[in-house]
């Protein structure tokens, strides 16, 4: 199996490295220059990531308002106890966040994949124009996107309802109609729709994934008489599962921090019926409206822990469905 020369070269390099010799002057110089170049990141990591993260945990043990820092009081794990066992809103807002993610993530990923497959087809004419135009709304500032959709989803005058009414005859406008942003059953779908305007990045990344699928595989399948759909399901999708996986992880982490749309539309009141008081919105309210920053730090750490758990679980499931080329089949 393993050719001998390779093994011996590994052994040689190991024996060469084992005795802890002193670094030569040149090597030391290289390390110094290397550290110089990466120093912006090293300093930034310490100042803006590591220390604040640890301090955040420290803050979670205090009852603390930044307006009156002298009155900060050490309360031990009282904030944690409150977040985990007493404050029902923590779990409710977390459940809403996950509920929304469970609706919006599959829809947006499938839509991105659909567009990528469509625009990867040799039969679509003017592909680059389509690609540009489907990407374009991703460039619109998110606040503007939300405001434009807020208008188009307006239950009385918005075009979505007007078009539905014209085409189907169902009475969609008015108080008995489709109240996209006011009906608790519809609001997550409405929010998902704004999200589709940000489909561009996922679409481009899927497109790159599709272009990386070796064409021999398709040719072989075609000779075997596989239909277009079979080729999609048995070749294309398995080969781009790494890309899907990566998008899924980023999407879940992003959903946990979903904040802008509910904040712009209703100032974080949770309208309708608290449905849009997501975890990040609740964190913002506690930290920057009530300025109870000890509790806010607790919620932030809780978010980190949940994000880590979800990421670990996703990575755990990945070996069952994510296909990495080069592994044994």
């Amino acid at each position, binding site marked *: 199996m393993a050719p001998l020369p390779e093994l011996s070269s590994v052994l040689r390099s190991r024996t060469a490295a084992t005795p802890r010799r002193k670094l030569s002057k040149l090597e030391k110089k290289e390390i110094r220059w290397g550290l110089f170049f990466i120093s912006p990141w090293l300093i930034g990591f310490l100042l803006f990531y590591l220390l604040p993260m640890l301090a955040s945990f420290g803050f979670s043990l205090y009852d603390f308002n930044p307006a009156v820092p002298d009155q900060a009081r050490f309360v031990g794990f009282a904030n944690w106890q409150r977040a985990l066992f007493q404050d029902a809103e923590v779990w409710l807002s977390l459940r809403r966040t996950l509920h929304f993610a469970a609706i919006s993530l599959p829809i947006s990923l499938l839509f991105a994949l659909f567009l990528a497959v469509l625009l990867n087809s040799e039969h679509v004419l003017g592909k680059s124009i389509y690609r540009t135009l489907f990407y374009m709304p991703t460039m619109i*500032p998110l606040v503007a996107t939300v405001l434009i959709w807020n208008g188009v989803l307006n239950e009385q005058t918005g075009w979505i309802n007007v078009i539905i009414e014209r085409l189907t005859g169902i009475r969609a406008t008015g108080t008995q109609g489709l109240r996209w942003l006011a009906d608790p059953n519809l609001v997550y779908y409405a929010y998902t729709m704004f999200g589709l305007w940000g489909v561009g990045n996922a679409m481009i990344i899927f497109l790159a994934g599709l272009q990386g699928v070796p064409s021999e595989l398709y040719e072989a399948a075609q000779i075997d008489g596989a239909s277009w759909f079979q080729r999609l399901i048995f070749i294309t999708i398995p080969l781009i599962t790494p890309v899907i996986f990566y998008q899924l992880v980023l999407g879940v982490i992003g959903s946990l921090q979903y904040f802008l749309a509910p904040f712009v539309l209703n100032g974080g009141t949770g309208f309708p019926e608290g449905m849009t008081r997501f975890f990040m919105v609740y964190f913002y309210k506690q930290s920057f409206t009530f300025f109870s920053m000890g509790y806010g730090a607790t919620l932030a750490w809780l978010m980190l822990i949940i994000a880590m758990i979800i990421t670990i679980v996703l990575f755990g499931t990945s070996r069952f469905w994510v296909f990495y080329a080069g592994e044994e089949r």
Partner: protein
Amino acid sequence: MVLSRRTAALPKTTRVALTRIALTSLALAVLTLFLIPMVYGMTTAVKTDSQIAKAGAPWWPARERTFEYEGKEYDVYLVPIDGTIRELALYRPGRQSSWFVDPENPAAGPFEWQGQWRQLQRSWRLDIQWGNFTRAWNTINFPNLLRNTLMYAAITTFGAVLSAALVAYGFARFRIPGKNILFMVMLSTVILPGAVTLIPTYFVFLQIGWVGTWLPLIVPAFFSWGTNVFLLRQFFLSIPRDLEEAAQIDGASPLRIFYSIILPMSRPALTAVALFHFFWAWNDFFGPLIYLAGHPDKFPITVGLTAFNNLYSQSTNLIQAASLISAVIPIAVFFFAQRIFLEGVVITNFEK
């Protein structure tokens, strides 16, 4: 199944042509649905205040037509007469019959029409309120928002590109103990939820008096971000070392090599990072929201637009106009630089 059997009987070129037409029209249909809100935004932005709420108004920007007759304004209706619809001004309304004037031929004077005028539809004339953009521009104090946003985007883009290039060069070329671990740590900061570092950072910035200024938003940009470093490192790794080695033999310092060889050779990658950061800054909301709260004169476009929406929530047309104004610059830059930009998206996200 039936369809595929039938198409299979056709000659190959016809089949290809049919698939082409079908798929291209499918793409066109999806694109149309996808961009409907954009068309809504554009048409609503130039409507009059009264048109938006009025039932029976057309979807395009319009004004109800009136006609001046003998010094008075009369409303113009669509009146069915002898199987054709004519646009006539309602001169004297009545219960069973009304008097109308023909704007095309006012000299003929008013004439009677049998029917209920309340059943008639108004006549609309195309009327584009370009002035709404000016109104939105002035109400929101757009020049100020624009200046703030441009300054923020420009300064942080400079900082982000410079620092990311330095760090990426360090990671790409130098043997540093523990480099791989450091690199992994850097990549993992990309998915770290920002909230977890926010409160202590905010507290420190508050203590040193930076809250209410742009500094908490600008300074961190000079310490490099993971995704940017990743993109540039990938690019630097693809540059052959020959030139650097030659320069080294000539006695050039690493900083000199970085400045006069690496940076000029990396123009496309640096441009991609600059574009990313520019758009990111243009879109940034949460940071300015918390650090600039209570200082409307310092707001960037995103936060200013939100405040505007809260104050003028009834003026749908002005809100749409302001939203469109805020999107003009990013979209324009995107159209000019899309190739570099989209390639950058692929490198940062796909090759990990």
